[in-house]
């Protein structure tokens, strides 16, 4: 029975998804599915938290699933994070889909299955389960992107996302095929053991292909071309899900690959390993995304570029894995947590600002919001401040820990570049606030009215609670992140 307990977070979400799918097929009316999906995911997060408290180490049977599923604290942390992100996206969808007339129950089923895929991805220690989780997650995300079937933008975004996503998947499995050829293993630990002793050309080519494939999935520059269009074309709750859960799942994959398969000292050295590659990706991602984000006229597209930039900050922490895997890994995990709640909140606030089929899209749509709807503007401001990294919000400590990990690792220049970039980034976040509080809409211009939805309000409250809690007392969360990042112990 212990094995069922160890697997319970995955089982809860899987069974919930199947039940919801049946409910969707048999119930004549679709109401309540949003609540169902959010409940399943929050229960999943709570169950993962329960297993965490009980201690996965006390469930010896969990190890019998290795290497297919590594049921460790790292996986449990991501279970909690992904269920939280997915649950927030489901709540937002509950308000958004009704308001914009595309309410169909499949959306919630897709969220559940995609979250399940991301959870499998985060727990996988073998190329087979890894690919299985990756595809389950991605297929759900592709379908969600195209969900508004009448919109040409949705079809276009979904198509670009699909073509580049499956291209990346093909590169990834070709890379794993070469790694298998070089080492005789498909499990990450086995690859790591052989990679530590002998470095063959086949191994190097395979590792490069795997890193490129993952870079597509985390949308690091220069592999980001699909991101803005997919994020803009998708219905906003789907954008939230992609920015939050899909990105976190991809980072879990990156961390597992770099720490387990390429974690040997010969691969983590600056002279002959992956750190310069990841550092280059980090610098390019932060800088390019920030420069383009500042020029956007659409707030949704700006947030899309902002999510790319945030992947860059997280990659700064990933680079620092070369010196202190636990400390730097913990900083990345904490960063992902703070980024998840801030981004879900920001997209949620954007959703809140539109109603009756008219979305708030441009900066002008938001002008004067501070006077017209102070509560909505206040919530939006909180999440923007967190994304900009201004205390006392979660985003501040997220950036703090990541840059501190880089400094501790001797990567001063990387930390400085990251800091400069967050100052640039603050410009376009604050620009939204300037429009909300200091501009008035042009006379006669149509203004978007905030919607009234209990679901969206609940999602914003949960996000705001996390943003403030992580910003005021981050110590507990950072302890959890440090325990989660101690790979190999569980």
């Amino acid at each position, binding site marked *: 029975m212990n094995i069922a307990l160890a697997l319970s977070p995955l089982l809860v979400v899987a069974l919930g998804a199947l039940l919801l799918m049946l409910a969707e097929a048999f119930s004549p009316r679709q109401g309540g599915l949003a609540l169902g999906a959010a409940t399943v995911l929050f229960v999943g997060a709570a169950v993962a938290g329960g297993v965490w408290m009980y201690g996965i180490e006390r469930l010896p049977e969990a190890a019998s699933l290795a290497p297919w599923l590594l049921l460790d604290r790292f996986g449990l942390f991501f279970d909690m994070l992904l269920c939280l992100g997915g649950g927030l996206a489901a709540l937002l969808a509950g308000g958004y889909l009704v308001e914009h007339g595309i309410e169909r129950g499949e959306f919630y089923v897709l969220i559940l299955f995609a979250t399940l895929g991301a959870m499998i991805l985060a727990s996988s220690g073998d*190329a*087979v389960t890894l*690919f*299985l989780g990756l*595809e389950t997650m*991605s*297929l759900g995300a*592709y*379908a969600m992107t*195209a969900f508004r*079937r009448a919109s*040409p*933008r949705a*079809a*276009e*975004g*979904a*198509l*670009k996302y*699909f*073509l580049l996503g*499956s*291209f990346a*998947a*093909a*590169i990834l*499995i*070709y890379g*794993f*095929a*070469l790694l*298998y*050829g070089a080492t*005789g*293993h*498909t499990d990450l630990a086995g690859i790591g053991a052989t990679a530590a002793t002998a470095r063959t050309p086949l191994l190097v080519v395979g590792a490069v292909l795997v890193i490129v494939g993952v870079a597509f999935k985390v949308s690091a520059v220069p592999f980001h071309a699909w991101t*803005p*269009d997919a994020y*803009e*074309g998708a219905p906003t709750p789907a954008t939230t899900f992609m920015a939050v859960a899909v990105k976190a799942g991809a980072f879990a994959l990156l961390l597992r690959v770099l720490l387990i398969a390429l974690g040997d000292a010969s691969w983590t050295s600056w002279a002959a390993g992956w750190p310069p590659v990841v550092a280059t990706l980090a610098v390019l991602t932060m800088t390019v995304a920030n420069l383009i984000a500042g020029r956007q006229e659409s707030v949704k597209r700006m947030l899309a570029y902002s999510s790319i930039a945030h992947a860059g900050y997280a990659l700064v922490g990933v680079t620092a894995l070369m010196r202190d895997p636990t400390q730097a890994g913990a900083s990345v995990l904490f960063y992902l947590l703070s980024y998840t709640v801030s981004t879900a909140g920001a997209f949620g606030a954007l959703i809140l600002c539109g109603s009756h089929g008219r979305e708030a899209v441009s900066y002008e749509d938001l002008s004067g919001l501070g006077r017209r709807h102070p509560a909505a503007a206040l919530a939006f401001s909180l999440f923007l401040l967190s994304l900009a990294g201004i205390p006392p919000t979660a985003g501040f400590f997220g950036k703090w820990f990541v840059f501190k990990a880089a400094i501790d690792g001797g990567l001063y220049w990387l930390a400085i570049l990251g800091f400069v970039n967050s100052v640039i980034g603050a410009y376009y976040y604050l620009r939204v606030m300037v429009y909300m509080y200091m501009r008035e809409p042009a006379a006669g211009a149509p203004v978007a009215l905030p919607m009234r939805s209990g679901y969206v309000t609940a999602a914003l409250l949960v996000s705001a609670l996390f943003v403030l809690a992580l910003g005021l007392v981050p110590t507990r969360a950072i302890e959890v992140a440090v325990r989660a990042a101690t790979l190999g112990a569980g």
Partner: protein
Amino acid sequence: MSLASCLLLAAALFCVGLYGLLARRQIVAILLSIELMANAANLVFVAFGHYRGGALGQVFAVFSIALTVAEVAVGLALAMLLYRRHGDSRVELASEMKR
């Protein structure tokens, strides 16, 4: 058939797929190219599986085939979406958004 010739064939398949992905404009043709690339990887898995012994390579290939089919089903659905709108399914039709 030697391992080297299998790997060379797989590399050539991968390159043909990559070329098709970049050069072809029909979405169905692009899907075929992606299939070629994925199958090149499967071929590498099976070839190395045979060379090293054991079932691991074949297991991965079986999973990979099933997953790629699911992927293509979604891809065709997206191509359908575009076709219904424009009566054609070339990628240029999906270029309304600006960089």
